[in-house]
């Protein structure tokens, strides 16, 4: 397929994951639709639990991924949207209020601006930086909820926002890692938010849905109720924990455990195959070994169950389950584990679905790559940002304050 590459608007999204660095490139067509051109990838190095531990090596991996993307798409990448994650990411909901002073009490864009700035001033830990200020709804005097208040009459106006913030140093490190490569970071989004854009439909969001991105390093999740984001979170547990548990439980080298997990991993043991064994063939410094399948499934099952349980408990504590009309969706590399859907169904009080395919126009090669949920979703986020204003303002320069860099976008 030939895409119009002469003077296209091209957007690129980058994620520095614990296992993979990926760069997704798409063309923004005249009609506003998005066509995927390709995804560049490289093995991530020096990243653990979603955070950069070894800056230089991580940066080399980022560089390799960008080059790969450029090669695949024949596009020069000069700026990217960046996904960030890490257990330091926290969120909360705030309500802000303003009076409508005008005589006719008509709400104008300025009032919305005022509210946005007020929300921006909300207190977050002093070592944190605001990443997202996501509008949930507006409330008029009579408690009418709306998302388009301009032109309506009211004495006062309230707005609810979902704020997402993170440790300034961690965020700066991530941004700097890319910016130092002479690639501008035009915008930043947290992974859970980005992933949601590749999975959840507007209908899902309106009916109430949860998206869980099971990654190698961390698990990100986000909750929509009535079309608005009401909660998001990051847990420092992921596919690596499943592997590590196998490593310690079966006394295998890490690499072997990872292979075992990918090839034979299952959260349930087929009752007919109770005595099933797996034979690991003899290698250089490794005897041939026979493992009980039961041991493998036992170890994986309790770990995965624990992770899912934490999410369930979190949402229950906030009284959110009653508001989920749609489903809880699972994506991310670790969602490919056999038996995940069945296990989730046992744990969560709402219907569960493991995302099998993304819907994207353009390059179809990546549709089933659940580990690319974040970066593909980030493209959609970028699409909205780019579509909304002529150009995102506050372009990154090295040394530029992160606060200005991470311009608050009020998008649903």
């Amino acid at each position, binding site marked *: 397929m030939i895409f119009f590459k002469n003077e296209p608007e091209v957007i690129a999204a980058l994620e520095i994951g614990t296992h993979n660095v990926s760069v997704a490139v798409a063309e923004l067509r005249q009609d506003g639709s998005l066509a995927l051109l390709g995804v560049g990838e490289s093995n991530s*190095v020096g990243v*653990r639990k979603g*955070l950069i531990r070894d800056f230089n090596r991580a940066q080399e991996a980022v560089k390799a991924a960008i080059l790969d993307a450029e090669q695949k798409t024949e596009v020069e990448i000069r700026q990217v949207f960046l996904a960030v994650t890490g257990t330091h990411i926290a969120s909360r909901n705030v309500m802000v209020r303003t009076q409508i002073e005008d005589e006719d009490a008509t709400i104008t864009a300025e009032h919305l601006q005022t509210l946005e700035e007020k929300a921006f001033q909300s207190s977050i830990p002093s070592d944190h930086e605001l990443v997202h200020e996501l509008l949930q709804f507006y409330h008029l005097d009579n408690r009418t909820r709306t998302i388009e208040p301009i032109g309506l009459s009211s004495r006062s106006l309230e707005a609810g926002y979902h704020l997402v913030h993170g440790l300034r140093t961690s965020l700066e490190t991530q941004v700097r890692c890319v910016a130092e490569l002479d690639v501008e970071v035009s915008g930043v989004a947290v992974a859970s938010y980005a992933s949601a854009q590749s999975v959840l439909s507007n209908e899902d969001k309106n009916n109430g849905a949860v998206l869980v991105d099971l990654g190698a390093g961390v698990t990100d999740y986000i909750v929509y109720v009535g079309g608005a984001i009401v909660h998001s979170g990051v847990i*420092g*547990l992921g596919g690596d924990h499943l592997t590590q548990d196998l490593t310690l439980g079966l006394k295998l080298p890490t690499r072997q455990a990872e292979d075992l997990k990918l090839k034979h991993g299952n959260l349930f043991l087929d009752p007919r195959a109770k005595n099933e064994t797996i034979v690991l063939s003899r290698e250089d*410094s490794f005897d041939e070994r026979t493992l*009980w399948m039961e041991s493998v499934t036992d*170890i994986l099952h309790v770990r995965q169950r624990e992770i899912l349980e934490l999410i369930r408990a979190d949402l229950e504590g906030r009284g959110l389950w009653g508001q989920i009309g749609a489903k809880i969706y699972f994506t991310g590399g670790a969602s490919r584990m056999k038996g995940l859907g069945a296990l989730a169904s046992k744990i969560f009080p709402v219907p569960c679905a493991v995302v099998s395919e993304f819907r994207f126009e353009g390059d179809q090669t990546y549709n089933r790559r659940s580990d690319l949920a974040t970066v593909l979703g980030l493209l959609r986020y970028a699409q909205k940002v780019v579509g909304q204003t002529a150009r995102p303002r506050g372009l990154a320069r090295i040394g530029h304050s992160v606060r200005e860099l991470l311009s608050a976008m009020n998008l649903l």
Partner: protein
Amino acid sequence: MKEDKKMIQFKEEGPFAVPQAGDGSGYAIVGVGSAGVNIVDHLVLENSGWKNVFAFDADDQKIRGSVATHKHLLGRTRLRGLGTGGDRDMGEELAKFEAPEFLRMVAGARTVIFVGGLGGGTATGVLPVWVREMRERGVRTLVLVSTPFEFEGHRRRDLATGVLHELQQEADVLLTFSNARLLHLQDAEKDIRELFRHMNALLARACTGLQRLVEDHGSAPLPLSELREYTGQAGLENCWVGAGAASGPGRIERVIEQVMASPLLEDGTVWKHAESALVSVVAGSDFTIAEYGEVVKLLQDCLPVNIPLRGNSTTEIRAQDRLQVTVLFTAGPGDAFQAGEAADKSAKILADVPGLDPEEEEVPEEEDAGAVFQLDASDSEGETPQRYFSRQEELPLDQRRQRGVFENTEPTLVDGEDLDIPTFMRLNMKIKV
């Protein structure tokens, strides 16, 4: 290529570059720390043919005096050869710092037998780190450690038990020997050094015995998976070694006599807990299968309990007339490591340890259900019985140690619990091996 873990490079300078027949190529015996180096020195002096023996310590005098084939002073610049002074954290730092040199020296080894004494600084700090390094590279690890004497103090014992837990997770096989076992020896009380010397000699024999059990050249080598079944979980003591050597006529009887008279077996504790006997027989080329059968049968006859024997016999031309038998009596899988169990539970658990033969007459009537290990009442004369299987419930789950791939990350804490520790472990689940 995965992450930053490199596969072993087969370097020219390692001792394994050119496999030599009969020297157990592919194996390395590594002594760490003061006791470890003493043990491997003993080993080399008794068996001059053993080439792949390594000594590592932070004490300059120890290393210089060592007769190991390959040796290295740890932390030369930092400690200037003065040792770790019992500082386990220092030992650990050294381990990480010296890991590249260690790896270079043992490059090419397929199996490493580590040996050391727990409770001090060097072996206690270094062993867990290097064992993990080996495991990560797919090298088999067999670890033999001695655990401190009673009088060495509470602190040393606590250190030892904490590290045992890590070693249990990281090593393929862990054999633990209690120094305290020798305390009752009649003449031993006169000289502490004598006690340690005995122990080192026995551990040296245990090392060579173990290596001979698993090496390919024997008549019936013990695969690692099988060996693991015989050794299971370790506490402060899960192995007792008996050794003997003799030549000339009647050598079989004399050897077995020596084995049964071995100090560690003297007080009979072993018979309460041993579940298997792993026998290594080394003899010259004139040794026949019939004679081997005689050894096994005689041993079986002499054993006060019915224990399955598993043996491997190795021929060494150099041995000529000399017959050498080493027996490792191992306690089977038990409920040794129950981290977090309440004090009152542990007694019940110990009483449930399999291997206690109900028909055995040795069990004294007065024995209370909780104290599994006890000095024979007649020996102690009014002294309080010692517990050698020290308070199980106190085994600290030293959370820093099992970090593995999560090294250098913030632990994922939820409600004060470190969730980086495997879930199955925190739930005390038994995993079928």
